C-alpha cells in the first residue's frame, strides 16, 4: 500500500475495495491450476465453442451474476430482495408455459415468451418497490411476501406440471448456444453488467442511489426523489431475476417451479457482500459483485478438483466467506499486521477533527 503513488490512492477507492476479493479469486484459481493444470484457465475450442473448466464456471454462474447485479443496486439503497429466487422460478415458468403447446421452433413464439416473462418479472419488482417506497414496509418483509408466494404463483402458472421445451426450439440457445464461440449466457450476463454500469455510472443514478442509501433523510432534504428511484431499483432487480430464470430454463429446457433458482437469493446476497458492498447501503461495486460471483462459482469446482467430497461444499463456502469478510475488516488486518510492524505506525482510518 505504501508504494502506491498518491494519485492512484485518491483516484481509485474502487480498485482498493476490489483488491481483497480479487486476491481470494486468484488463490482459488491458482489452487485449481496447480491440481488440474493450466487447462483449467485456458479454454480450448471444441465444436465451434469455447470449452474449459473456467468458461463452464462462468457459463453456469451467469444467472447468479445477473441476479447479484440487480441485488447490488437494491442493497445500495439499504434494501434487500429475498424474492429473486421465486421471481426466477416465475420467469422460467412463464416462458416455458407460453412456448409449450405453441410452435416451439418459431422465433416469434420464443421472443414473445421471453418478453412476457421479463414483463411479469418487472411487474413483480415494481410491486416490491412500491411496497417499500410507498407503504414503508421493511424491505426484508416486503420481499419475503413474494419469496413465499412466488413459487406458488409459478406452480399456478404451470398448473403443477413441469413444462418442457424441445431441443429444436431456438429458446434453448439462450442457455446452451454460443456466439463467436462464447456461450450465450456469458454474453447476456456481460451485457447486463455493462448496461447496469452505464445506467448507474454514466447517468447520475449511481450517485443518487449511494446518497439515498448513505443518508435517506439528507437525500430527501436535498430534493432527491427517493421514492421513484427505489421503485426503479426494485424493478431492475426483478427484471434481472426474471432474465436469470429464462436463461436457467433455456439451459434445462424446462421450468421447475419448486426447485428452479432455489436459495439463489442467498448466494446473490453473498456475492454482493464478498464484492465489498455493505449491507448498510451506500457505496456499491458492480465489478466487486462480479468477482464475488466468480469466487462462489469457482469454489464449487475447486472442492471437487482438490479431492474433497461434495459434502464439503457448504462448509468450504462458509470458510471462504469468513476469509473474505475478515480480509475486508480493517480491524482484522491491523491485528494480523501488528507483529510485523512494531515501529512503523499503523495508519488509522479516522482523521483528526
Amino acid at each position, binding site marked *: 500500500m505504501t508504494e502506491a503513488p498518491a494519485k492512484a490512492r*485518491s483516484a481509485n477507492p474502487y480498485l482498493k475495495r476490489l483488491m481483497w476479493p480479487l486476491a481470494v479469486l486468484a488463490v482459488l484459481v491458482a489452487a485449481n491450476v496447480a491440481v488440474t493444470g493450466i487447462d483449467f484457465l485456458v479454454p480450448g475450442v471444441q465444436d465451434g465453442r469455447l470449452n474449459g473448466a473456467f468458461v463452464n464456471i462462468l457459463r453456469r454462474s451467469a444467472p447468479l451474476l445477473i441476479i447479484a447485479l440487480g441485488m447490488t443496486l437494491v442493497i445500495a439503497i439499504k434494501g434487500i430482495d429475498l424474492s429473486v429466487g421465486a421471481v426466477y422460478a416465475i420467469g422460467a415458468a412463464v416462458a416455458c408455459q407460453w412456448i409449450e403447446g405453441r410452435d416451439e421452433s418459431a422465433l416469434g413464439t420464443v421472443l414473445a415468451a421471453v418478453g412476457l416473462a421479463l414483463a411479469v418479472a418487472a411487474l413483480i419488482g415494481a410491486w416490491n418497490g412500491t411496497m417499500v417506497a410507498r407503504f414503508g414496509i421493511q424491505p426484508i418483509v416486503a420481499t419475503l411476501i413474494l419469496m413465499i408466494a412466488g413459487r406458488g404463483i409459478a406452480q399456478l402458472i404451470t398448473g403443477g406440471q413441469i413444462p418442457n421445451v424441445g431441443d429444436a426450439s431456438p429458446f434453448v440457445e439462450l442457455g446452451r448456444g454460443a456466439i463467436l464461440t462464447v456461450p450465450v449466457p456469458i454474453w447476456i450476463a456481460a451485457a447486463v453488467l455493462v448496461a447496469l454500469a452505464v445506467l448507474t455510472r454514466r447517468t*447520475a443514478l449511481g450517485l443518487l442511489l449511494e446518497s439515498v442509501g448513505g443518508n435517506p*433523510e439528507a437525500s430527501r432534504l436535498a430534493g432527491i426523489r427517493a421514492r421513484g428511484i427505489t421503485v426503479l431499483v426494485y424493478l431492475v432487480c426483478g427484471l434481472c431475476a426474471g432474465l436469470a430464470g429464462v436463461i436457467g430454463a433455456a439451459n434445462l429446457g424446462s421450468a421447475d417451479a419448486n426447485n428452479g433458482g432455489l436459495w439463489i437469493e442467498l448466494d446473490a446476497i453473498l456475492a454482493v457482500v464478498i464484492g465489498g458492498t455493505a449491507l448498510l447501503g451506500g457505496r456499491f461495486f458492480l465489478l466487486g459483485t462480479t468477482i464475488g460471483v466468480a469466487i462462489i462459482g469457482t469454489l464449487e469446482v475447486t472442492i471437487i478438483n482438490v479431492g474433497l467430497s461434495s459434502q464439503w461444499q457448504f462448509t468450504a463456502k462458509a470458510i471462504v466467506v469468513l476469509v473474505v469478510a475478515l480480509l475486508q475488516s480493517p480491524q482484522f488486518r491491523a491485528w494480523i499486521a501488528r507483529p510485523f510492524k512494531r515501529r512503523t505506525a499503523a495508519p488509522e482510518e479516522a482523521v*483528526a*477533527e
Partner: protein
Amino acid sequence: MSDQPIVEMTGIVKDFTGVRALDGVDFTLRPGEIHAVMGENGAGKSTLIKVLTGVHGPDAGRILLDGAPVRFAGPGAAQAAGISTVYQEVNLAENLSVAENLLAGREPRLGPFINFRAVRRRARALLDDLGIDLNVAAPLSSYSIAMQQLVAIARAVNIDAKVLILDEPTSSLDRDEVAVLLGVMRRLAAEGVALVFISHFLEQVYEICDRMTVLRNGKLIGSWDTADLPENALIGHMLGREAATLEQIERVAAAHQVADEAPLLEAEGLGRKGAVAPYDLTVRRGEVVGLAGLLGSGRTETVRLIAGADRPDSGELRFDGSKVGGHNPRTATARGIAFCPENRKTEGLVADLTVAENMILAMQASRGWARQVSPGQRAELVSAFIDKLGIRPADPDLPVRNLSGGNQQKVLLARWMLIEPKLLILDEPTRGIDVGAKADIQRLVAELSADGMAVLFVSAELDEVTRLSDRIAVLRDREMIAMLETEAEMTAEHIVDAIVAGGRRD
C-alpha cells in the same frame, strides 16, 4: 488546587494517514482546576482528548497519570483509571430509563438480579447531588437532548472520575441548562476533580475556566491562566492572525438598502400542531431575517415548514408571487428555496460520499437522474466553490466525513449555492464550528444578501443574529412573539427583553 499535576502529557505526536494531527504537544492538568482546550476545528483538540482517553494510542510522547507513566489500551482502561468523558453527542440508550442509564453496568444487585428499587434510589440521589430534577423512572427519550446531556454528565461523574472531560457539552443547552451545568462543574472542581472543558462559547470559557491551553494546526501555542489571556489575544492565538476579524464583518446593512419591493416569501398563519403555533412571516429579496429564541422555542420548526421538510397543517405560504401547494423538499428546491438543516451529520451530508458528490447533490437531484451534471462541469463547479469558500483540505475526492465541522458546513453551503436559490434557509450554520469558519460563513451571508438573495438565519447566538439580520423574529415556547425591525431594537438586550416579556404576557 494542588501543584502536583494529575495528568502530564509531554511531546505527544499522533499521525493519521498523511496528516500529523498532533505535533509534540504538552498538556498539564492539575486536580481541582477547570482547564479549557481551545483551538479551531482541525487544531487537534479532539485528537488530544482521544489520546488522553485511550481512543488513540500516541505515536510518540508519554502520558503521566498521578506521576506514573500510563499507556491505555482503550477507552475502558482510561475510564478504569479515572478518566471519564462526555461527548457532544449523547451516548446513552434512549429506550432505557434515566436511572438505568445512570447506573448501567454498575447496578446494585440482589443476588443475580438487579435491584431496580435501589437503582432508582441511587439515581435520584445522584441527580439531587447535582441539582438536576428529573423523573428517574421515565425513559431517557422523553427528555430533551439537553437533559439527556446532563444525564450523561451525571453518569460520568458517578464513575469516581479523577479527570472529567467535557467535549462541547453545552452546544445544545439553553441558558438555564448551561447555568446548571456550569454549577455542576464548579462543584466537581471544588471536590478536587480535574476538568477539561472544550467549548466554542467563549463567554462560558471565560466564566468558568482557570487555565487555557491553545492548539493550532496540531501544535501547542501555549498555556495561560485565564486572567492573563484577554479575549482578543486568545482569538489571535487560535486563528494565528490578528484578532477582531469578527468585528470587521460588521453588517454591510447600512450601505445596502433592502429594496422596498413585494415580499419574496409570505407565510400567513403557517403552523403545525405540536411543532409551532401559526405565524406570519415575510422575507424580501436581499433581506436577512434572523430567528432568535431559546432552544426548543420553535426556531427550527418554523423554518422547516417553509423549507418543505415538514408539512404544515394550517395556514398558507406564498413564494415569488404564487401560492405554494404540495410543498416538499423537492418542489421547494425547484422553486428556489434552499435549506441547510441544523444537524449537518444526520440531515445534511452523506458521510461516505466525497466532497464533490455532496456538493453536486442538490443540483443533480433537481435535474433528475437521467441528466447527469457532466464530469467536466462538475469538476469546474466544485473547484470553484472549494476556492470561493476556502474549503480545506482542497481535495474534491476526499470523503466528506474526513473534514472538520466548519469545512463540512461549507460543503453544505456550496451544495445550495450551486443551485442559486432565491431564498437560503440556514439553521444554526455556525454551531459547533471554529471562529475562523464562523467568520467566513457570516461574511458569506452578508455577501449573498447584498447580491439580492433572501436569507432566513437561525442562530442561538444573539450577537450573530443581531450582527447579520435586517429584521429579527423572536420566538418563545413555539410561538413567534415579536418582530424587531429597527436598528435600535435589534440588540441582544431587546431580544432577551422580548423573550422575557413574551413569558409574562400570559
